[in-house]
């Protein structure tokens, strides 16, 4: 069993870290202040093939594997998790089209997505208890020309910047989530209204907004996968997304623990650097340990994805682990830095606000433990 990344994977990670240091580090603080979509940086990512990392060479992608992908996401996240978030949400949309799209759909969208000329978004969540249930649920009704969609999607990331959205609607409100169906919706389709950008406490720069659908007419060709096949598609896509998001969390945590360790080595209290105090050592050690184990866990899940093997349980496990221990990485490193870990003149508060936005349980009541338990009991 080889725990080492291949040479290519290491070099890809190295390129991502160099990109992060060169292009993300100088803008990260400003991006957090303004929340303005960093178009120049996204273009730069496209030029370095990061936006088409997983896509086949036929569509202009780099055709690198998922392990390389999570290596990139972790590396970018060390400098700006907001930018990594943009890449993640785009990539999951592209992944979905790549795996469930028809040849025509792939041709229509993937070339431009690989080039970064078309950004993707993934619209699954709603304000109700589950997608497809509730007064605002997005409903797709069969129509002469295809389908008509009405309703609202909640908290769509890359909203307003994406050119195409993977959208999940129910074809039968009585069946709710069971009749969930996926569609590809171009951003300029008539009847789509991207709501006001929502104010998140971190990951600023990756826009989040609700999207309303008012009599949106979609042709048959917009159907992605089978009718009522949306549950299977979204489950798999979200499982892949959770592994990618885990890499984001680990990248943020790694940046935090390195900063806190450097701080502890030079902060002198009681005549010695605080790094010599067992209390501080415990905090740093726990974060470093959790980071390390999470990384191994997500790399394992990533390898399974790359090899086309079943991975959903492993993906759920890493999500469960980080729901419990992800934010702790910043709670503990901020604690190491004390007052400095609370001052926005220093980097940790931004990392705190960013990491709190990863590994969220967005489908209320939908816990990863259910899947894990089902796999063993």
């Amino acid at each position, binding site marked *: 069993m080889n725990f080492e990344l291949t040479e290519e994977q290491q070099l890809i990670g190295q390129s991502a870290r160099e990109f992060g240091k060169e292009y993300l580090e100088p803008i990260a603080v400003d991006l957090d202040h303004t929340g303005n979509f960093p178009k120049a940086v996204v273009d730069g990512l496209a030029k370095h093939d990061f936006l088409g990392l997983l896509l086949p060479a036929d569509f202009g992608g780099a055709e690198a594997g998922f392990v390389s992908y999570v290596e990139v996401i972790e590396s970018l996240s060390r400098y700006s998790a907001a930018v990594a978030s943009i890449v993640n949400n785009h990539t999951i949309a592209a992944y979905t089209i790549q795996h469930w799209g028809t040849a025509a759909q792939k041709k229509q969208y993937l070339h431009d997505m690989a080039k970064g000329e078309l950004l993707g978004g993934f619209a699954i969540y709603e304000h109700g208890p589950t997608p497809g249930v509730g007064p605002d649920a997005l409903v797709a009704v069969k129509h002469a020309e295809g389908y008509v969609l009405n309703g609202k999607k909640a908290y769509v990331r890359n909203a307003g910047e994406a050119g195409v959205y993977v959208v999940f609607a129910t074809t039968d409100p009585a069946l709710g989530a069971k009749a969930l169906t996926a569609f590809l919706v171009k951003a300029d389709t008539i009847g789509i209204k991207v709501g006001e950008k929502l104010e998140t406490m971190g990951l600023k720069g990756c826009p989040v907004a609700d999207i309303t659908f008012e009599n949106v007419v979609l042709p048959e060709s917009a159907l992605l996968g089978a009718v009522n096949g949306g549950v299977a598609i979204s489950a798999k896509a979200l499982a892949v997304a959770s592994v990618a998001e885990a890499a984001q969390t680990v990248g943020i945590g790694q940046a935090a623990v390195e900063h806190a360790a450097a701080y502890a080595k030079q902060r002198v209290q009681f005549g010695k650097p605080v790094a010599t105090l067992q209390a501080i050592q415990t905090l740093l050690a726990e974060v470093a340990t959790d980071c390390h184990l999470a990384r191994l866990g997500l790399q394992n899940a990533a390898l399974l994805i790359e090899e086309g093997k079943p991975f959903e349980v492993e993906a759920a496990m890493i999500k469960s682990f980080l729901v419990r221990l*992800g934010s702790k990485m910043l709670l503990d490193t901020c604690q190491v830095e004390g007052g400095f870990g609370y001052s926005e003149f220093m980097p940790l*508060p931004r990392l705190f606000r960013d990491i*709190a936005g990863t590994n969220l349980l967005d489908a209320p009541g939908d816990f990863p433990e259910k899947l894990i338990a089902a796999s063993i009991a």
Partner: protein
Amino acid sequence: MSILSPEQQAIKQAAKDFVAKHIIPFAAQYDKSGEFHPYLLEASKESKIFGMAVPKEYGGLDYSALTQALVLEEWGYGCAGMGTTLAASVLSMDSVLVAGNDEQKRRYFTPMLNAEIGSFGLTEPGAGSDAGAGKTTAVKVGNEYILNGTKCWITNGGFASVYVIYALTDPAAGMKGISAFIVERGLPGFTIGTVDHKLGIRSSNTVELLLKDVHIPVTNLLGKEGEGMKIAMKTLDMARPAIAALSVGLAQRSLDECVKHVQKTFTGKSYPGQTLQFKLADMQILVDAARNSLHEAMRLRDAGLPYSKESAISKTFCSDVAMQVTTTAVSLMGTYGYIELGKYMRDSKIMQIYEGTNQIQRLVISRAVLAPPPAAAVAQKAGN
């Protein structure tokens, strides 16, 4: 929830009403801007709440420790930042309570009754947890002291009228050479430095204080020269539970908001499953246990019994609980939580840090835990 007297219930309800009217509607706005709520003090005048720890003989509300905790929990529930404004002011006046003479108490408690506030100036860039490592000096010249130095992360610094400043009257004696002084706002050489932009409690004003040849009369010395650290430690002992109270309020608030959202989301036939139910139950268990530990510590203090260990325990436990509950609330409620409940998570982190980090608290607690039992100590002595 411990059983309260009718008087305590009335005071708690009054605080609740005040918070609902003057704090909750403005909390989000001042969290966003990081500004001090300009009408908070004005609105507090009528209740004299900033004089809640001031003894009756000086015109104060003379609230028991438990009653103060009830008030602070309500303020923490409304906004931990504004609650910090109140807690820090009371903290500074606790030093006067501990070491002030009658004249000083009268002089400095009176403005508190009129919603002027106090500020506690101990921390310096090189003196955080190592509070005794401060370098601010106070040199006695004739019937004055001249103060020089820098204080940082001082709550209320930009808005207080009375400051308790700790400075070295005898640098060679190190920690034992620190004394406590009252410095009044506006004295020449006493200026406000940078304002700190914080992750949370953003409506609380946190600043640098700069002292350059600040002259104060000798009558502004609190207690005796060299007693500074003793006074500071006693003050912090008294004030720690205030942070515990803010934390309990903060935790309860985030839990309540969580529950509201769950109730709104799961309507009609849908109901939260067991996992979600149990997570909410765990949050309530922690908040209740935290509140009870705090009230126990306050009862000990009100009874005149030693409570240093319990004070440290309640500060540690309540702030840890707040951190855990507010963090769980965010991830549990998904992006809704990230948007709407993030403030509580940000506010919680400082509760584990200020007024003695929870690591320092654990030193205090473990010292008490590891100390030999009293009987053994007596036997030891007898054996000598």
